[in-house]
Structures are given as C-alpha cells and as structure tokens.
C-alpha cells in the first residue's frame, strides 16, 4: 500500500492529518498536471483544491484496482475537463500578457522539478498539443507506467503507447528546434 492510500484510509477513519498529508504530497504535481489542461496556474490551483474538496466531501472508496495516485489524478483530470467544458467560451489570454501567471508557474515548477534537464523538457512541452503535453507529464514527471497513465486518461494501454510515441516525436522536434539534445528521451 503506498503512502497516499494509507493517508487516505486514515482520513476515512476521521483523522484530518491524513488529508493534510495527501495535500502535502500531491498538491504541486497535480497542479502542474491540471495546468497542462488550463494553461493558467491560478485556475489549475483552484481546480486542484476542487479535486481535494471532492475527495473530502464525497470520501469515495478507493477501487483498489489502481494505486491511490492514479485514482487521484483521474479525479483531477475529470475536474479539469468539467471546467473546460463549462468555460469553453472564455477568452484565452496569451501567457506573455500575464507576467504574474508566468512567474507563479515558474515558482511551482522550480519547487517541483528539481533537475535542470527536466525543467528544459517541461518548458519545451508547453509548445506541444495539450494531449501530448498531458501524457508526457504523467510519464516523465509523475513516473506513471503506460498502463496507469492510460487509466487516468481513459485510453487502452495500446492507444496510450501510440500516443506516448507521437508525443515523444513532437517533443524531440521541439527540442531540436531549440538546439537541445536530451539523451533519455
């Protein structure tokens, strides 16, 4: 049983510290994943909190078919998609026009991604299609297997592998453009 699951079990038994531990361990990663949908770190923060509210309110029983983290990211993804559906008509403002957004995103990014190489990778991912950005985040930064990432995004393992392959090619092309060579890609 991973830490998230044991913390969640404690929370279900009435220990609020279990919930605080979950937020501590998963807040930043989940926020950056949701940011790959919203492209706005403040909205991503709100949706991350919303995901935790759902967890605290509904106290859903973990299905045990996948890890707690996979399950939490699935709830986060659904929350982000719901938000995008409801707000599809909102006007999008380019990131460059909101310097405070960029700096907030960078500070979360720096706190979560320690390695310099991965930071370069993450920034190159911003130019990819949302679908590619999302799957690469799950695989490269959260360490999910293709199978678990497939569960989160609702695709079969085979389709997920194909998506990862295409996303990798796009990322490579993007890095080439910038003159970076990333050996582990």
């Amino acid at each position: 049983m991973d830490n998230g699951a044991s913390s969640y079990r404690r929370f279900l038994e009435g220990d609020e510290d279990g919930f605080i531990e979950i937020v501590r361990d998963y807040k930043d990663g989940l926020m950056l994943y949701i940011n790959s949908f919203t492209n706005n770190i403040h909205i991503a923060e709100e949706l991350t909190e919303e995901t935790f509210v759902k967890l605290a309110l509904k106290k859903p029983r973990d299905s045990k078919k996948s890890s707690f983290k996979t399950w939490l990211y699935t709830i986060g993804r659904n929350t982000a998609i719901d938000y995008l559906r409801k707000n599809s008509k909102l006007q999008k403002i380019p990131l460059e026009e909101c310097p405070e957004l960029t700096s907030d995103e960078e500070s979360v990014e720096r706190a979560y991604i320690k390695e310099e190489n991965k930071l370069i990778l993450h920034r190159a991912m911003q130019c990819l299609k949302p679908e590619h950005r999302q799957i690469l985040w799950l695989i490269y930064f959260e360490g999910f297997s293709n199978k678990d990432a497939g569960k989160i995004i609702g695709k079969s393992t085979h389709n997920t592998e194909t998506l990862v392959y295409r996303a990798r090619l796009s990322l490579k092309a993007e890095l080439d453009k910038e003159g970076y060579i990333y050996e582990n890609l």
Partner: protein
Amino acid sequence: MKTYKEMAEDALRRAEKQKLTNAKRKKLFARAAVSVFCFAAAVTCIDIWQNAPVSEMPPEITTLGTESREQNTTVKPKEKPEQKKVITSFPANAVCSYIAPGNGEYLCFIEVNEARKKYAGQDVVFLLAVDIFSEAENGEPHLREVSDEEKAAEYKRLADDGFDFYEVTYWDYQGEEARKVYHTALAAELTEEQLQGFKPSEKYGYTFRFITNGDSSGINDDKINAVTNFHTPFIV
C-alpha cells in the same frame, strides 16, 4: 499561491460548507415534495367533486344573511334542473383586457367562450355575471354610470325574457392579513342557446363572465338563491 496547509484547510472547510448546503437542499426538497403531493391530492379531490353529477350534490339552500338584502330581493329556493351540469368557471390560457361593449352590443370573456367551445353540444348551463354598461350621450366616448334603478329594470327585463337569476356567494382576500371575506353577487344561469340568441337592449352594453373566488377557483353553486324581484342595490 497557497501552501499545502492552507489548501488542505480551505478544502476541508469548503467540503464542510458544501455538506451543510446539501443537507439544507435535501430538507427543502423533501418539504417541497410533501407540499406538491398535498396540492396534487387537493386538486384531484376538487376535480372529482366538481365533476360529480349535479344529482349527487347536497340540496342545501341558504337564505340571505342580512335584513337589507331581504328587503331588496325576493328569494325563492332554486329548482335545479336535474340533468344539467352547472359550469361555474373555466381555465383560460390567456389574460385579456376588454373594451366595454357599446350600446346594443355584448361580449363574453375569453374563459366563457373557451367553456362554450369545450361543452358544445352538451346539456350544461353556465353560471355567469351579467355586467351592464352604457355609453354617454351626445357621442362622447366615455361610459356613463348606470344607476341601480336602471340596472334593476334591465335585470327584470332579462328575467322576463327567460334569464334565471340567482344570488351567489364568492370570497376574496382583504386587508394586510389577507383575510377571506365573503360577498354576494347576482348571476344568471344561461344555456348556450340563450347566449347565442341574446337580444341586447339598444340602451346598454353587456359582458358575460364567470364569478371567481380570490384564488381564481369557481364559486360554489350549492348556495344559490333564485331572484325574481329586482330591487336596488345590486352587489356584483
């Protein structure tokens, strides 16, 4: 950006608030469901009662309540036609405002016309208020007030012409506390043939309408007294 502690505390607080809101909503929904059920049951009962054959209704007849009314009207118990259903109200899908009919003209309110269409060919009578208007002389566009004496004479003429008039009771809400207050009014029981063949006097205009209670329900046709002698004043 929030720290993990702030986010955890906010999430727990929001979840708690949401739980309370959900509980309130559930309570409200339960109350609304009970109210809707009671209302539906009441409407069904009223519908069954209103559609019951006339012969099943109690033959209760009330007398006039005040001395002045006894002086002003001669009342005899109504002899109801056994088979005829009395239509006292009808729902209309529109709200209309009317221009008072000119002398020698008459009109039926929309709900009366709807009821006439609905019961066409059936042996029913309509219990209607007959309002009397009169245009001002010398071509002025205004209506002049028809005196009680003139009304009495005209109702008498109509009664002689075959109109059956009754005194009926209806209620409305009055005052700040919306108390139910009962009133009396004069109503004619008319068949479709009488409405079609109505001959207005050249001196007056007429409207035919249902008399309704404060909640728009039809009046109770149990408490009807037939009126044959018309004196003033008339409470319509």
